[in-house]
């Protein structure tokens, strides 16, 4: 947490947010200058600037504190100072400009990913959904999909990923204090976390928790695990994602333009308060932030229809627009909050609704596409496991070259709602 007395850091963040609103090349105004009266910003621009600043700093009361104050940089800095004076211990509400590039003392000890063992060319999926041959490839950029074999399901895929992660970390199952599972396709009870608990033969007093969020599930799970470890309630936690869409979004139940995009996979991450002995390259979790952009709530809705089918409302154009805009916004927010320049990244573990959107996102972010591991193109959209498989791919790549200078990793994802969340990992 940047101390509030570090005014240079606030200054940088305020200036960056100001330039987002006023234009990249705008001159920085005099601190006392009334931004509205002098026409630098109109009232909408002023509020928009403050909202960006609230978002980047996590200081959500900024706008409220500036009521009856002059719209100027000076007032903003004064509000920061007043907030600190009023409540010096409430660090989380205070500006985190130029947050030091460090982790939070929670380490990713190991990771693993698996995908459904049947590799299906996208044309076969086109055919199954009665779509023109080549549609998934040409429109979405999907070359093949990973489908679960008959003997595979959310439990087997998730358990396999978890066992691999435990093995890599040389960590015994009894060391686990919590199993946190997430899946957008597993329905029924015992829940996936409970089933994984039994399957892995975890200690009876190891907790089992399912978190939701659909494609945002992994980021939700990592944040929950981080909180449990940081508060001292747990030492080692397995966060597991597992999704088998091929049995949920079946031809005849949903349109191919939607159901055809999805594949099956799982991922697992072992988190601990200490670095693993077997680890040459370790990453520490940074911070996470979340939100819900409800204006996109209508873009995707999935519900059970009375006839047992799935009632899917899927506005592909609105959803694509939302995905790109929001993911780019999340990436920018991570950059502002962490102070990490995106050009230094090892990679980005983001949600990948389809490969075309990954290309567009890379372009919007001004980053080479190879910073985004190939997931959706080869396996399809894996739901909560997309981010997991991508994050595992980046972590694996760092292990293959021990001499390489490691860069930070950003993770960002979305879920229906439109839920959004993101965070960062830094080399430990």
């Amino acid at each position, binding site marked *: 947490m940047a101390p509030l007395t570090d005014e240079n850091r606030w200054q940088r963040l305020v200036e960056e947010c100001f330039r987002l609103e006023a234009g990249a090349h705008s001159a920085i105004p005099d601190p006392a200058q009334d931004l509205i009266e002098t026409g630098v910003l109109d009232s909408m621009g002023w*509020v928009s600037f403050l909202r960006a600043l609230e978002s980047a700093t996590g200081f959500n009361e900024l706008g409220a504190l500036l*009521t*009856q104050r002059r719209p100027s940089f000076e007032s903003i800095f004064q509000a920061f100072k007043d907030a600190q004076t009023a409540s010096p211990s409430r660090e989380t509400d205070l500006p985190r400009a130029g947050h030091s590039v460090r982790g939070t003392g929670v380490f990713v000890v190991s990771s693993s990913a698996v995908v459904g063992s049947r590799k299906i060319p996208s044309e076969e999926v086109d055919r199954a959904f009665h779509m023109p041959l080549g549609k998934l490839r040409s429109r979405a950029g999907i070359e093949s999909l990973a489908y679960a074999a008959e003997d595979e399901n959310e439990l087997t895929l998730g358990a396999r990923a978890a066992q691999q992660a435990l093995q890599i970390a040389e960590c015994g199952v009894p060391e686990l204090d919590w199993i946190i599972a997430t899946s957008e396709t597993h329905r029924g009870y015992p829940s996936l976390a409970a089933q994984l608990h039994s399957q892995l033969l975890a200690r009876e007093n190891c907790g089992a928790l399912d978190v939701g969020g659909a494609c945002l599930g992994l980021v939700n799970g990592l944040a929950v695990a981080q909180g449990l470890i940081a508060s001292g309630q747990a030492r080692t936690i397995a966060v597991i994602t597992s999704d088998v869409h091929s049995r949920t979004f079946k031809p005849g139940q949903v349109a191919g333009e939607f159901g055809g995009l999805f594949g099956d996979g799982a991922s697992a991450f072992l988190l601990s308060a200490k670095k693993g002995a077997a680890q040459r390259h370790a990453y520490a979790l940074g911070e996470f932030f979340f939100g819900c952009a409800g*204006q*996109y*709530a*209508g873009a995707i809705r999935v519900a059970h229809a009375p006839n047992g089918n799935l009632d899917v409302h899927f506005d592909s154009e609105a959803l694509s*627009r939302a995905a790109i805009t929001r993911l780019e916004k999340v990436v920018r927010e991570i950059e502002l909050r962490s102070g990490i320049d995106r050009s230094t990244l090892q990679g980005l573990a983001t949600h990948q609704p389809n490969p075309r959107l990954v290309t567009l996102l890379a372009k919007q972010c001004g980053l080479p596409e190879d910073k985004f591991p190939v997931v959706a193109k080869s396996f399809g959209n894996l739901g909560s496991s997309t981010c997991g498989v991508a994050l595992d791919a980046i972590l694996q790549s760092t292990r293959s070259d021990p001499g390489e200078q490691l860069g930070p990793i950003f993770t960002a994802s979305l879920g229906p709602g439109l839920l959004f969340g993101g965070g960062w990992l830094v080399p430990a």
Partner: protein
Amino acid sequence: MTKLLITEITRMGPAFCVIGLQREKDKICSVRPVTASANSWLHFPYQRGDVLQCELAPFSGAKPHIEDRVSTHGFQKESRVPEQEVVTYLRKAEIAGSLPELFGCALHENRNGSGLHAMPPEPNRSICGSETKNLRLELCANELRATLVLSSGEVLRDLPVVDRDWRDFIEAALVEGRGANRVARLERFLNSQFHYKVLSCPHHFIRLGLTRPYHDLCWLMLDTLFPLPKKEWLEEF
């Protein structure tokens, strides 16, 4: 002569923008009287619910402000209808329950900060009524903003509130003569009594509007919030 039921009086800066309802055969539609030289009025001594006699000439207003009509003579007040009746008529005029239906086009979020906008000339109108499931007003650095849920479940966040009566009410709540902690007291009102008074009102209704193109974008705003605030509410906080 045209009969116009005044339903909207909005305020941005020193000028007022006015919208009314006009009956056209079996339809009720919104009409925005403008002067021959400007889109707004510096003086408009009427209230919502007033029925005015006026003369309106067609005006080739740029899309999406297709409701613009030039007022060629002054207004003459003919009668007045109560607030709930105004809402009854508004419910028969332009109305939508979801984001894409509001203006017949996609609405985009501000990539940098807050707010939603449409891209002209995509919208096919500039005003639309809607029911809401929930609504919250807040002050952000002297600016009144609304966040609301449409009946579709879609959330519109940080909309500038330009409703003249609500803006006047907020300003009146903050005048120095009202004593200490005015902002905190107003915030408490907006977070508590407001909810009860507005959302439980049978004629709770909103109208959303689009600004005129500004840097090539039309921004979404809360033009009207019914019920209108009552002066006596100021005594409650």
